[in-house]
């Protein structure tokens, strides 16, 4: 085999593997989107790919069982969670990155272990606490719970971004006349902006797709999309058409975010490997 043929062979093989991987990820999504346009008669038959598309399912979630409140609630909660996660997580990360104290690295790792433990461990205590405080089914409860769940990875990731800012740059500003707080706000924060964006989006998405806390801590006053979607499984069976329409609507914002800020997210996931400039 000549070099060229060999190279073409190898690269087609690589593309084939990538295509298979992509298909395994995309197929459920494609199926959901396709199903959401199917008429009721064929909705539950996956093998039917040819049909007269209809907007019935979307009409259903627009008026019969409106998706507007869950959509608005989820947007509000996820946005609040992203902002609060950064507001609490970034200063904590700064302290863990910049101040020398005994057991610092152990503390940082301990915080991360919360992210590795199963959420179900926390949901019952949180339920009891919010119940006692009369906060069940409120925005405050679910926003706090999601923020709490996000903080470990927010702190961990932001710490990596902060470490990428040379300490001397901050020190130069101290000597030039800034206080510690001013250095953080006007030197460090602008320099870790890509990190703030990437981590903020991740926090948003994690809140958007979270189900367990939402199921336990909210009901009707606050209605999140994940819970709303699951409610299409009724005693009369799954109302598949409208359900897939609701899912289609609910994956749009996160997907859009992921596309628009793909660059930042990739950088966020490579951590310290990429310098922040």
């Amino acid at each position, binding site marked *: 085999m000549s070099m060229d043929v060999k190279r073409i062979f190898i690269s087609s093989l690589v593309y084939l593997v990538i295509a298979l991987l992509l298909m395994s990820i995309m197929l459920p999504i494609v199926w959901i989107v396709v199903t959401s346009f199917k008429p009721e008669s064929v909705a539950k038959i996956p093998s039917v790919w040819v049909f007269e598309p209809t907007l019935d399912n979307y009409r259903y979630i627009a008026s019969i069982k409106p998706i507007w409140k869950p959509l608005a609630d989820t947007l509000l909660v996820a946005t609040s969670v992203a902002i609060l996660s950064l507001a609490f997580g970034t200063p904590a990360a700064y302290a863990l990155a910049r101040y020398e104290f005994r057991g610092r690295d152990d503390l940082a790792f301990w915080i991360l272990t919360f992210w590795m433990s199963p959420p179900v461990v926390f949901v019952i205590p949180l339920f009891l606490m919010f119940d006692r405080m009369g906060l069940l089914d409120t925005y405050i409860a679910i926003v706090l719970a999601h923020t709490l769940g996000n903080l470990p990875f927010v702190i961990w990731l932001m710490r990596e971004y902060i470490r990428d800012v*040379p300490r*001397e*740059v901050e*020190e*130069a*500003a*101290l*000597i*030039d*006349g*800034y*206080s510690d707080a001013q250095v953080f706000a006007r*030197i460090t924060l*602008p*320099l870790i902006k890509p990190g703030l964006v990437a981590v903020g989006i991740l926090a948003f998405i994690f809140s958007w797709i979270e189900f367990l806390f939402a199921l336990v801590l909210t009901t009707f006053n606050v209605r999140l999309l994940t819970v709303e979607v699951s409610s299409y499984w009724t005693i009369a069976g799954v109302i598949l058409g409208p359900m897939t329409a609701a899912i289609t609507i609910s994956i749009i914002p996160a997907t859009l975010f992921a596309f628009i800020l793909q660059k930042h997210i990739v950088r966020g996931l490579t951590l310290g490997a990429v310098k922040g*400039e």
Partner: protein
Amino acid sequence: MASVRLVRVRKVFHTPRGEVTAVDDVSLEVRDGEFLVLLGPSGCGKTTTLRMIAGLETPTRGEIYIGDRLVNNLHPKDRDVAMVFQNYALYPHMRVRDIIAFPLKIRKYPREEIDRRVREVAELLKIEHLLDRRPRELSGGEQQRVALGRAIVRRPQVFLMDEPLSNLDAKLRVVMRAELKRLQKSLGVTTIYVTHDQVEAMTMADRIAVMNKGRVVQLGTPRELFARPANTFVAGFIGSPPMNMIECSLDPGRGLLDCGVLKYPLDPNTGSLLQSRGVIEVILGIRPQHVRIQKGEVPDSVARVPVYVVEPMGTETIVNFKLGETMLKAVVPADVEVEAGEVWSIVFPRERVYIFDKKSGELVA
């Protein structure tokens, strides 16, 4: 403007691999308006000393005064010092113009004054054409000049400069050396300047503090350090080419230093001084510029040996002799004709010879 005083300052870093004593019991007084150079090899604690004066590092022990004020617990912003960092530390998200103006803006200088000063500084440092760039669009030398600009745009109590010329090309470095010295004298700002380049230290300093392993081993004017190095470390560090150092042992019977091939007759006073101190093993030091060589036989020569290699430098010539293990260098005028292999007499003028205790390294005579 102010003096800077360090009293028995010590800095110990705790690392996972144990304790590192970066600065060890340094006492130092920098006079008001003085240009003091901290000179020493890599890792001797120069940067750490500077950082403690700036307030970026807290001394483990000892006191630091700026003027009459004890500053140990004073925040860097309240010390009124300006610093040039070894690695520049420019603000990556700002343009050069704003970086230089930064300390003035914080101090709320009027707009016109800021503009004027930035222009002056940019002109002095020859970076006018770079004012609208960002740090990552600059070469190392350009970044270094911007860092220098950010420091000298102010009139602080003290300038702290950590190898501010190390990344400039040789020509620009010579120019900047002179400009910086002139600027410092005209502003009269007390300056502590770190370098490991002895030429820079000699040409710029009012006084030099030579550091080694966290300690100040000698403090004095460039002349003093050159003429009377307190120990072999300073002797070897200052002067170019470095001082010849030859290991010898005292032969009290014959009243001379036995250095293998080379025999150096002592004057009786020095001989008895060494004996009274019990110093037998010594290091004989003589600067290459002070070694005299002659083609013929001379009565007071210390050795007659063949020339090993000749290095013409243009204005002068370095002649190398091999004495056992050590190389002896002599600097002679360029018009002296020397060929490798020829046998020459070597003469050490008595008043140019330094004798150090080999064990302690201290100057004895």
